[in-house]
């Protein structure tokens, strides 16, 4: 089937079998390999992408269901070539990753949280990423990274101090 997808603000037409998950479509047809295949049945969260700005599992959605939505993958998050978003920066600074497999999904989930709640409590951060499994870090630095990014992003719109 032919499907027209809007991924990272670009319209693309792909030819997929109905059983192709959005995840497989992003990775194999569009070569956006930042969305990771983990369990492929909705448990691990590694495949999380943003659908109209909301974090969802791309393995639990078929590509043929995804037309008409604005899909954002980790590749679409950076403000420009060679630049990182405040969340990506914060993850680097606080070492919010080890192997990195869960990281794109963690960042996108955090991005969805911060776009709705710019000043989350620690509990709200933990709740938000509770559907994303990380087997390396023990989560402490991931939570720290999200809190740091939140603080910086809140500061971005303050008038410059003289």
């Amino acid at each position, binding site marked *: *089937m032919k499907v027209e997808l809007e991924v990272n603000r670009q319209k693309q037409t792909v030819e997929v*079998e*109905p*059983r*192709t*998950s959005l995840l*497989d479509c992003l990775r194999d047809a569009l070569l956006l390999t930042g969305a990771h295949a983990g369990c*492929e*049945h*909705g*448990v691990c*969260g590694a495949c*999380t992408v943003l*659908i109209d700005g*909301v*974090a*969802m*599992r791309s*393995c*639990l*959605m*078929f590509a*043929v*269901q995804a037309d008409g939505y604005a899909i954002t993958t980790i590749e679409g998050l950076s403000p420009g070539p060679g630049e990182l978003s405040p969340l990506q920066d914060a993850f680097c600074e606080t070492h919010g990753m080890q192997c990195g497999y869960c990281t794109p999904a963690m960042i996108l*989930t955090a991005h969805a949280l911060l776009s709705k709640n710019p000043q989350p409590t620690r509990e709200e951060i933990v*709740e*938000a990423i*509770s*559907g994303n499994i990380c087997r390396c870090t023990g989560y402490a630095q991931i939570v720290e990274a999200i809190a740091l990014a939140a603080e910086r992003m809140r500061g971005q719109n303050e008038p410059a101090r003289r």
Partner: protein
Amino acid sequence: MKPAPFEYSRPADIDEACALLVADDGARLIAGGQTLVPLMAMRLARPSRLIDIARILGLAYVREVDATPSAVRPRESGDPGAPVEPVERAALDSRLRGNERGRGFDSNGASIAIGATTRQHVVENDPLIRAKLPLLAKVMPYVGHGATRARGTVGGSLANGDPAAEIVLVAATLGATLTWRDGGKSSEIAAADFFIGPMVTALPLTACLAEARFPVWPERRVGVGFHEVNARQSDFAFVAAAAQVALDANGCCTRAAIGIGAAAAVPLRLDKVAMDLQGKRFEQAKVGEAVTAALAKVETLADLHASADYRRRVAATLAVRAIADAFAAAARRA
């Protein structure tokens, strides 16, 4: 690519969806797919066709409806003139049911109608639900994870009929009424008659669930409680208990609804316990005895994670906690 091959259709309305179901024995409806797609990935489900109803107009809504009889109540979708026939109570094995069966509560007719394809996160954040259906609002954060609630639907959870599902438990506890469309015909059924066994419901194979109507309690002092035990946060519950009580000015119970989920093949309603609470204040020991007695003869489920006796014991404990919370929450309301 893990699922077996299937065809994909996206009908424009319920009638077309029903026609597709009639035409293909192996077809299944999909809206959120947060349960169905994992089953397909594990090939526990192999539908020959997926009929995507998620974008059918007028199937996603939350609204208050008054006491007007449902037969003449205007509907957002479908044929307003379609006759609504009450479904006869199916002859069901009473063992599946547990010891008590719940009917709908009198709510002076007022209820909240939720369209079948309403996303779970919409219900979770809806101010009307928070104000009028505190028990449903209370359980929503326990339904899957944020990322699955963003896509999963209320109707999908009900139609799936998992006894461990929180929305299923609330529907049974409050005595919700479910409406389905089968071809041109609309039918209504009480939640108590809808859930038949684990993942087995009274929904005909060719029908599409359209709406769930939850009764609203008009009393001013209403409180709710909910507890569940699971292996990890937002995983399937081993046991869940929900309670909603209304108190008079003196703190005495005027009515109560108590439900147990995940413990047996279908959600249970402890109506005798609820009746006995009427006119009384909360007394932990007495409530504990009543709940334990009510659960004594229930056939509880057993699996790798929790034995039948564990489920029975924990169900009683959680029920008492949920009832205590509901009394306390109601007492805080002026």
